[in-house]
């Protein structure tokens, strides 16, 4: 039986030249299975939107209803958290949500889950935090310090609160990246382990004798795989949603700095 970690192995699909970036070293631009699944996810999104909005009508067709449902869902989320200024950030949140959602779901249908790669989730998290920082400094300039100094808090409390706020801000990209990575990693490892049980218990039971009971264990494991798969569908959606919500919350902190809390 292969290791449950084997599914996360990266192997090249299409070799491309390695580029030497000064200061960063050599970057292998070969298409590997991780990049391939990202490409498939992005292509599916574009394809779906191109088809469903090609003949966009005021009275929507079936596909357009789905697209508008997703659109409205995230639109309500963004405007609900950030306010009417959230419209400017809607495309970013929408892209993040759709991309993560599609990669998560693809991981349940295809072999490889791009969002189970820390490199991917960390990049998404860093991109989000960079956007938050850029928006924050462009909008607030030097007032950005208010992010760590909540209004209406007495000075002696600030001594305690400000370092906590600062550290929690620094930890945001880390938690953002690790939450998605951990959920995807854990879910797929659990699936793999249970699926492995099915095979190894069946192999054991084939030996005959008392070991025939292994079939019962295999059936139990199979049921576990089915149950876990449905749970993973929920997790796949939930993690994309959580990432989008947190992106909105972090953006709201800097867009409406000093208006809330």
């Amino acid at each position, binding site marked *: 039986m292969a290791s449950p970690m084997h599914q996360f192995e990266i192997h090249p699909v299409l070799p491309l030249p390695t580029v030497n970036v000064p200061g960063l070293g050599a970057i292998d631009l070969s298409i590997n299975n991780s*990049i391939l699944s990202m490409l498939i996810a992005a292509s599916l999104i574009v394809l779906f*939107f191109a088809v469903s909005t090609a003949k966009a009508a005021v009275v*929507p067709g079936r596909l357009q209803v789905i697209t508008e449902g997703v659109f409205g869902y995230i639109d309500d989320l963004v405007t609900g958290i950030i306010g009417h200024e959230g419209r400017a950030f809607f495309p970013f949140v929408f*892209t993040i949500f759709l991309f993560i959602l599609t990669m998560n779901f693809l991981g349940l249908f295809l072999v490889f889950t791009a969002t189970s790669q820390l490199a991917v989730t960390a*990049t998404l998290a860093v991109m989000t935090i960079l956007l938050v920082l850029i928006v924050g400094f462009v909008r607030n300039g030097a007032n950005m310090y208010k992010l760590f100094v909540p209004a209406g808090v007495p000075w002696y409390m600030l001594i305690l609160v400000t370092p906590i706020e600062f550290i929690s801000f620094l930890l945001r990209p880390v938690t953002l990246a690790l939450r998605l990575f951990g959920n995807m990693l854990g879910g797929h490892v659990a699936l793999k382990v249970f699926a492995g049980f099915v095979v190894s218990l069946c192999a054991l039971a084939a030996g005959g004798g008392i070991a025939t009971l292994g079939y019962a264990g295999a059936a139990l494991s199979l049921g576990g795989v089915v149950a876990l798969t449905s749970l993973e569908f929920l997790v796949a959606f939930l993690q994309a949603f959580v990432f989008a919500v947190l992106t909105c919350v972090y953006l709201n902190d800097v867009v409406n700095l000093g208006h809330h809390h």
Partner: protein
Amino acid sequence: MAAEPTSQPADAAPAHAGASTEAAQSGGGLPQFKFEFWGGQIVWLILIFAVLYTLLAKVFVPRLRKILDVRAETIASAVEQAKTVQAEADAQAAAAKAEIDQARAASRALAADAKAKATAELNKRQAAEDERLAGELAQAEDRIRGLRDAAMSNVNGIAVETAQAIVERLTGAKVTAADIKAAARAGQGAA
């Protein structure tokens, strides 16, 4: 799902399997921490994300936004129009109601008028009739009185003649009417 085609080590190329287990062992177990693959993934992710973001932000989101705005506008204008039409209908209904009320009042007035006129006419006619009847009654009474008087005077004549005839039969003497009358008057006076 976890059904990976190369999950059986026997199927995988021995060199690849060996390399991967070796790498996994040297990399601390998780393939995700083999940093030689990070660069490519990061660069490609940023590229793919940028393309996806551009397409969504410049093409699909405006397209959907426009549709939603047009729909909201259509619905709002339809509702507005419906409200206007409703108000108009209400106004018309009120006008119609006022008109009906007016017509009803007019007809009621007309009816009352006609009734009053008819009553007056009737009263007048009745009065005329009553007058005519009273006149006729009076006339008739006069006639009756005249007839009675005439009859009464005739009764005297008859009585006189009868008395003449009786006296003549009884006595054989002729008496004049004047005598009879005088006798009757004497008799009346005696009585």
